[in-house]
């Protein structure tokens, strides 16, 4: 059985849901960050699948998106880890449940 588009999309969707669940449920900020990374990669996988199976605006558009997303994700990871370190230095914790300064 040759894997088709729907198999790739299903894997992408499962990955995205896993990532979302991690991002929303992890109390450790690093864990949340990892969840987000998984979601980004799930999106990358989906985009590449579409590009590979020729749906959308030609084969290049999807791949170009993915390159950009990987770049931005790298930058985001750097900033987010720096933030996590900074928060830990200031508050001695990176438990997101305790970082509720937004509460009025």
């Amino acid at each position, binding site marked *: 059985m040759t894997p088709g588009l729907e198999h790739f999309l299903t894997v992408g969707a499962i990955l995205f849901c896993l990532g*979302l669940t991690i*991002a*929303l*449920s992890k109390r450790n900020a690093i864990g*949340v960050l990892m969840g987000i990374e998984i979601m980004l990669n799930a999106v990358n996988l989906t985009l590449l699948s579409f590009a590979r199976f020729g749906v959308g605006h030609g084969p290049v558009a999807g791949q170009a998106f993915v390159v950009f997303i990987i770049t931005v994700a790298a930058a985001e990871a750097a900033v987010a880890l720096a933030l996590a370190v900074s928060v830990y230095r200031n508050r001695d914790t990176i438990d*997101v*449940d305790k*970082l*509720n*300064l*937004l*509460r*009025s």
Partner: protein
Amino acid sequence: MPFLEAAATQSPTIDEWLLWAILVSPLTAWALIVLYFRKIPAVAGYLAIAGIGISCLISFVTLFNVIDADGAIAQHTHEWFTAGDVVVNLGVRVDGLTAVMLVVVTSVSLLVQIYSTGYMAGDSGYGRYFAHMCLFTTAMLGLVLADNLFMLFIFWELVGLSSYLLIGFWFHKPSAAAAAKKAFIVTRIGDLGLLAALLLIWSRAETFDIAGIHHWAASGEASDKIVTLFALGIFAGAAGKSAQFPLHVWLPDAMEGPTPVSALIHAATMVAAGVYLVARFFPVFEVSTDAREVVAWIGAATALIAATIALVQTDLKRVLAYSTVSQLGYMMLALGALGYVAAIFHLFTHAFFKALLFLGSGSVNHGTNTFDMRKMGGLRAKMPVTFWTFVIGSLSLAGIFPLAGFWSKDEILLDAWRYDRALWFMAATVAFMTAFYMFRAIFLTFFGEYKGGEPVDHHDPDNHFHGDPAHPHESPWPMRAPLLILAVPAVLAGLLNVDHDFGDFINHALPELPHHEGSTFEWGIALSSLGLALGGIGLAWAIYYKRWVSSASLRELFLPLAGLFEHKYFLDNVYEDIFVRGIFHRGWNRLLELTDRYVIDGVANGSGRLVRGVSSGLRPIQNGLLQTYGLGFAAGVIIFVLAVFAANPL
């Protein structure tokens, strides 16, 4: 307007600007006093006298001018504004009726101002007093000069306002403030009728012009019912202002104001405005028999009720107040009985002798510091000028030949006799009572032993009483002179209509001469009224001078009646308990209060409570945790996606 020329031979030639000057002169005095001289008594008083004096002078010029024109009508109208179809004019109308009223108003007003410079001397509100007086005079003159009902209504209300201000002149006295409020509210009830008449006439005749309304009523283009409604609306306004039963209750209380105010406004001029108004629209009342019947019987009832109350009053000024109500009832009775000339003639003579009597009572007050007749007595020797002028005024009011009151009252009695014997009987009874109560007042005030007056309360900062009430003295010249001057018309004014000159003169103010014959002298009526008046005086003399019968035993004899009179027929109680406390406090006001509390407040508090409830329900959502927000966001997206799929099945 062709129907105007029917009565007129030639128009009065007086310049229009002179007529407006009558109005503007006291108005200027008012403005100057209010703006510059309120705190300068010396100027304020003389400014008022000058302003009203000029008015008075022009009024006399106008009168003679109209006499030369044989009572013809002159009218000058200018458009004031238009709103859609409504055209409102400002204009002056001069005819016999106007000219007579002008002279009455300005001359009495002038004399009262002169008197006031003495009476009000030292009062802290001296400037304010004269300002109000000027405003009143302006308003009254405007009312008289107005050539259309709209303008008349404006000045009518201005007159009511100045009356309010002057009754409540000593506003720090609770009784005066209450009296002012009462007068304003009670007259406002009548004015509602006048306003209704104003709207009715506009919707039916599309004119406010007095001549136009005369024409409208006479032409028969409106149904009798509409004319009657209009006439009754006019009469409602007149009844409020002229203190007719059942709206008369404000006038006796209005005596809380300074006495010269009572003399000018609440005896001579403003309260006569109602009579003037009915006379002004007399052609309308001629058409509507029903309305005329109402006027006649209300007038007769008022005359009788007020006269009986006056019998038992112990306050000199209140005797005069009820007498005024009674005489106004007389005038209304005359108008209802088709006695247009008689009513205006009585208005004319009454203005002089009643002003004289009021100023006389003020002079007595100036000497004794009280109006209570039980504290007076024996003032004849101490205040001779006051005494003699007061007697002249009383004789005139009682209707003794040949004084002014005799002639005018006689005409009213004659008209009543011709119209309805029952009306005549009531009027004759009132004539008897009038003589009795006036001379009761005279004997109590001026004869017998002096009982000391009211001691001066030196702790009262508003008391400006000079001299010693224990030793009363004659009033100063500014007060004596008006008394003496007013005594002249009180004696002679009646002679004007002996040859019907006065009647012919004011008859020309009507669009067509009355079909019924004007009053002529009749010996029977004249002698009977004279006899009744003398009988009343004699009875008063027997009871209060000779004391053959003690007044206390007489009171015992008529106890239920006397009690009724002393309590003013319980009308004040009825109004207070039923209308004010019952219907308003417990009914309407309570309803408004409950509406306010539960409906208005309910809406305001309810919306607040709603917001608070919703917010306390929603508050847990904002917990500051980004993950919760993210969960919400994700859930929203999922719901959105599911909804899209549900709407577009694959």
